């Protein structure tokens, strides 16, 4: 496959590109969906091809083909260059690529048990057992289970001399129980809604203990139907770690993408409330807020060896003691901002243009614990597992719904409440962070469904998070 990528780069240079890089990839995906002990779908996908990026003057072109012949790869390089020339019809400012070391390397993540070698029948049996167990609770109408596995072999070549191969294996699963009422439904999921995915093998599925957690989900879903509504008003808000992970993703991770800050995503995903002139000075949150983007965390979903521009994975400070200090960058955006490239550019398959993507954007742990947070809260609500999420195009005004909540009064967890929601403005919300659990309760949550770009790309990102408390948050907006 290196030859394929090399041919694509040579094709681009021969056509006049001043810089070119190419990724030849083989991607394999397997997904099982189970409903009420019936495997609804078993789907396997294998994609292979080459995508080449060419720079002419200040303009980019990208072309991808699923034809894996040498001639097709060279033609793809030529096409990418011709597209770059057409881009110059509406030209932009002078463009440079920030320097990175030229590397020849191989990287792969540790895998104890190859998920593609595990018999399909074993996977199906596990989902059937887990959904069957959830369904044993009277009132559970829909017991669902999903597993997904991704295997990616990537070969990167650049005209500057990069030659990097990577093999990345990702695995994940989710089970959920839904109870249906007269006018609404209630759902509980595990390990988190939309699934927990890690850069690892089938061992993560075994560690989840899906069957052992199934009865609790069924019982909670049914209990929620009869639970009182989440109260409305200003309360102290305690978030479980998976919900806090999504809060980080939406209100920090996307906001710090340099392409958004520069306006490159303005028409679709939006921009950012952050202004580069305030980098190093803006108060993003309370002094407890320390956020890093760290692509080197073992097992986290946003980990890799090198990004899709050949820049090595690294840890970058984003927020230090509440002050905004870092952004997510690529070689072109970093050069514009006068920053070092952070190795944060990835594409969703060979046929998608690499773009700025979150790696593992998460909180560094505090010194408290969920037990201590609850015990020190007089009037609050604890919310767990995401149900809905929405945030504006500058990443300021957000509203989240969770699957389940509990009132917390005078230091004790009280009755369960249904349809919990909370809303806020990003820097005000983060400024109210006043308690943060420690390393023992930190989880490297994975988000396998991050949409961005046109054509749409689905990214895999990681978010270390732990239980936390925010004071004076508006909760209970349900329409």
């Amino acid at each position, binding site marked *: 496959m290196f030859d394929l990528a090399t041919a694509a780069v040579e094709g681009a240079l021969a056509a006049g590109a001043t810089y070119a890089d190419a990724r030849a990839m083989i991607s394999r995906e397997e997904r099982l*969906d189970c409903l009420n002990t*019936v*495997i*609804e*779908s*078993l*789907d*396997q*996908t*294998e*994609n*292979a*091809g080459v995508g080449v990026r060419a720079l002419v003057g200040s303009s980019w*072109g*990208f072309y*991808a*083909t*699923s034809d894996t012949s040498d001639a097709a790869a060279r033609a793809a390089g030529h*096409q990418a260059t*011709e*597209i770059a020339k*057409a*881009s110059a*019809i*509406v030209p932009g400012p002078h463009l440079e690529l920030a320097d990175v070391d030229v590397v020849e390397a191989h990287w792969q993540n540790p895998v104890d048990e190859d998920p593609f070698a595990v018999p*399909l029948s074993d996977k*199906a049996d596990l989902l*059937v057992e887990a959904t069957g167990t959830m369904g044993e609770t009277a009132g559970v109408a829909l017991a669902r289970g999903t597993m997904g596995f991704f295997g990616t072999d990537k070969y990167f070549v650049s005209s500057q001399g990069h030659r990097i191969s990577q093999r990345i294996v990702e695995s994940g699963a989710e089970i959920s129980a*839904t109870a*249906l009422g007269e006018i609404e*439904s209630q759902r509980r999921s595990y390990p988190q809604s939309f699934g927990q995915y890690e850069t690892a093998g089938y061992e993560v599925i075994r560690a989840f203990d899906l069957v052992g957690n199934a009865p609790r989900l069924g019982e909670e879903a049914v209990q929620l139907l009869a639970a009182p509504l989440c109260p409305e008003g200003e309360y102290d808000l305690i978030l479980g770690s998976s919900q806090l992970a999504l809060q980080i993703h939406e209100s920090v991770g996307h906001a710090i993408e340099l392409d958004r800050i520069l*306006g*490159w995503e*303005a*028409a679709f995903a*939006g921009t950012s409330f952050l202004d580069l002139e305030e980098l190093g000075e803006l108060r993003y949150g309370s002094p407890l807020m320390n956020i890093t983007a760290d692509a080197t965390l073992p097992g986290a979903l946003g980990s890799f060896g090198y990004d899709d521009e050949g820049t090595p994975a690294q840890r970058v400070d984003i927020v230090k003691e509440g002050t905004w200090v870092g952004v997510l960058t690529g070689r072109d955006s970093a050069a514009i901002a006068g920053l070092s490239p952070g190795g944060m550019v990835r594409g969703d398959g060979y046929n*998608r*243009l690499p*773009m700025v993507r979150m790696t593992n954007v998460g909180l560094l742990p505090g010194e408290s614990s969920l037990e201590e947070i609850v015990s020190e809260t007089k009037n609050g609500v604890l919310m767990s597992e995401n149900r*809905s*999420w*929405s*945030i*504006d*195009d500058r990443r*300021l*005004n957000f509203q989240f*719904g969770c699957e389940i909540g509990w009132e917390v009064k005078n230091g004790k967890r009280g009755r369960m409440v249904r*349809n919990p*929601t909370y*809303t*806020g*403005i990003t820097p*005000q919300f983060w400024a109210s962070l006043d308690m943060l659990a420690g390393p023992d309760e930190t989880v490297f949550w994975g988000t396998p469904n991050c949409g961005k770009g*046109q*054509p749409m790309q689905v990214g895999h990102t990681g978010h270390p998070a732990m239980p936390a408390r925010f004071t004076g948050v*508006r909760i209970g*907006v*349900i*329409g």
Partner: protein
Amino acid sequence: MSEPFADDLLDEIAEAVLDRVGDRGEAAVSVQSGTLDLTRFANSFIHQNVAEKRAQVALEVASDNRVASASIDRLDDASLDRLVERTVHAARLHPHDSDWPGLIEPTEIPTALNWDDAVAEASPADRAERVAEFVGAGGGLQAAGFCDTEAFAVVYANTTGHHVRGKFTRTTLDGIHQTATSAGTGHATSTRWADIDGSSIGARAAELALASQDAGNLEPGHYQVVLGPECLASMLIFLAYYGFNAKAAYEGQSFFNEGEHQFDDSITLIDDATDPRAIGLLFDNEGAPKQRNVLIDAGVSRALSHDRRTAAKMGTTTTGNAVPGSAAFGPVATDLFLPPGATSPADMVADVERGVLVTEFNYCRILDPKTQVVTGLTRNGTFLIEDGQIVRPVANLRFTQSFLEALSPGNVLAIGDDDRFAANEFGHGMTHVPSIRLADWRFTGNARG
């Protein structure tokens, strides 16, 4: 820039795959090839410009009601061998699927061709010229958006002898113009290249951006609203995905009650891939012809969207709404038409004593599929209306609102005469709708929270 592979090559691949399966099970194969080229601009220049040529072979095999599917994007013999053996093997390991409806028998498909050579042959320079028109119409405002062209050919064949083919083109120009404090938007989607006028779309976006500068806050609360076509498009796609989806209804997660007056009399909603304006194929992912399906008739919920699985379970026939993944998610309508009313958008505004004019929604997410309570925000032009006049722009508002209640009897005050393809939360070319005026809408937040 380059057309899909020839139809006869796709036919040959389909037959080659079915031959490989042989008598080892029922099998359905879908072979598609095509191009997707997209020119993206921001800060008034082209910053991303991509193209791809792909082929994909998707196979579903059922062996003694054990079903598995797989796909691959390489067409060489070894890859096709691997696809078939992997799928047959997986099917044998699969538990018995009591819901397997079997494959469609040979069925005639309408032959309308949603195709335009000019789209299939559009070059990067052609798209760049459209972008230049859009940017130029802004008179120096900051422009961002995309122009794309898509051309795909698809062959579906199965072991019952059903064999159909189709192809389509689509092109979209979608963008915004921005001032320092505002943005305005313009869209157009069509099968035909000649329908895309970059200058007029750009001028509309610039007009909105200039009109919505220096917006002030508006207190959240209940307001009468005039919603642009993009807003109604997003409301309808949520109703289609989560409500008129027969699987959701079968599972008890839909609001749908057949024959019940769930919507205002003025609402009729039709899913119709056979409409001459529709974009895309005339058969679905199971090779079934897409039917003209009246989902709402003068306010009365009439029909669900079905694939063969839901149809078999619910004792009816498919409406041709199978999509990739519908075995788990369920069938969905993708060609929604809401007929226009007789009121112009200007007249709708003139009839509002105090309310809000909304151009677009952004980031809508459903809180509960059964009640259709959705939260989202306004975007790209929101205005306060008083005494029939637009008095000032307002900063983006958050709403938390049941889309079902929004369209319920008595809440719809007028339907616009400005129907067109409007982008919705899930994409372009699926919803052809006008503006709408509603008596009550709940805004739950503003820029202050």
